[in-house]
């Protein structure tokens, strides 16, 4: 543990093989992120965890820590870029917080609060994405998907099922389920699967649980995400 890099001027120790975000997390420093999750291999797609490493923009979830790096994260410029990424995520999907069961527990929303996003700024796409209510226990509302691939990784790497996948490329990318019918009910997804627990937004929802926790007692009502996250 003798090796260190600096994060916003603070010395951060790291072990060999650790990424910048892992070492920062172990040192109690929060770097905004959505597709990163400590239990899964990094995906490096949301770019929210972008920091500058010796002046160059790098995703901190996929960049290995190295001795002597000068890392900047909590700067006005980087937070401004993160806010822009969030705004693009908000307008690409249909994110209507007042009617979303995940509101108050949603990492996209909580991160946008943390970074002071007052408006989605861009023109809205208002895409048409039907929901999948076929499964008796689980609802899929694709309107809120941010393509973080956490459910894909959890199903493949933990559940060993490959229920979910990202299909298509670029702006046409979408979340699909592994069944010829395209319906979750025709997959082997089951309650207890890790994949059904990891969605950071309101796509994968357990039925008959909506709005069970009152406003004021939800995860990010009590403390901002920077002080809450695992």
């Amino acid at each position, binding site marked *: 543990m003798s090796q260190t890099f600096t994060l916003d001027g603070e010395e951060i120790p790291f072990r060999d093989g650790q990424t910048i975000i892992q070492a920062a997390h172990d040192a109690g420093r929060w770097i905004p992120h959505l597709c990163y999750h400590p239990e899964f291999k990094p995906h490096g797609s949301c770019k929210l965890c972008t920091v500058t490493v010796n002046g160059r923009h790098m995703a901190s979830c996929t960049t290995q820590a190295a001795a002597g790096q000068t890392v900047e994260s909590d700067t006005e410029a980087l937070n401004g870029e993160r806010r822009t990424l969030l705004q693009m995520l908000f307008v690409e999907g249909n994110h*209507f*917080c007042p009617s*979303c069961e995940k509101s108050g527990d949603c990492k996209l929303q909580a991160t946008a609060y943390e970074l002071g996003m*007052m*408006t989605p700024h861009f023109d*809205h796409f*208002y895409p048409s994405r039907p929901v999948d209510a076929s499964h008796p226990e689980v609802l899929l509302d694709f309107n809120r998907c941010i393509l973080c691939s956490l459910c894909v990784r959890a199903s493949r790497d933990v559940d060993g099922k490959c229920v979910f996948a990202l299909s298509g490329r670029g702006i046409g990318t979408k979340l699909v389920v592994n069944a010829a019918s395209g319906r979750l009910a025709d997959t082997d997804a089951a309650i207890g699967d890790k994949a059904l627990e990891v969605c950071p937004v309101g796509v994968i929802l357990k039925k008959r649980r909506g709005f069970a926790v009152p*406003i004021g007692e939800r995860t990010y009502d009590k403390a901002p995400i920077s002080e809450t996250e695992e």
Partner: protein
Amino acid sequence: MDAPVKKKLRVATTSLAGCFGCHMSFLDIDEHLFELVELVEFDRSPLTDIKEVGDCDLGLIEGGLCNAENVHVLREFRARCKKLVALGACAVNGGLPAQRNHLKLTEILEEVYHTSPGITQGLIPNDPELPLPLDKVHPLHEVVKIDWFIPGCPPSGEAIWKALTDIAAGRDPQLGFGVLRYD
């Protein structure tokens, strides 16, 4: 020598494709209403019942744009107000009315006025007095420049008061933890 009398901000408010919930929340600033009347005077607003917007320092607009009249009123506000605030979720991102956006307008009108249960020989309203609905519901910033945004459904009285006092003091509104809300 007497201190110069501070000029009050002249404020207009309106609700477009909204539910007046943001206006109700505005009244929820409770005892700050006494401070507010020292700070602002109202032009066109549901609170004054003035019908035409005059020259104002600030326009507060609740609701998004779902019909031609909404667009007309918004453009009038933009022309007469030095600064415009999008107040609440619908003004900021279309909100609840925008959830019709993935449906065709003709299909919605058919279902509401022709095929839904209980309707017999329904007619789609077509009076020339009625503003035509827009194909899609839009937030305000897609049509005119908006200077500030206060999200929330509705924004709490605390959020509205904080934003107004920031604006009156010449600052961009800053809503901290627990006050900045999208729901």
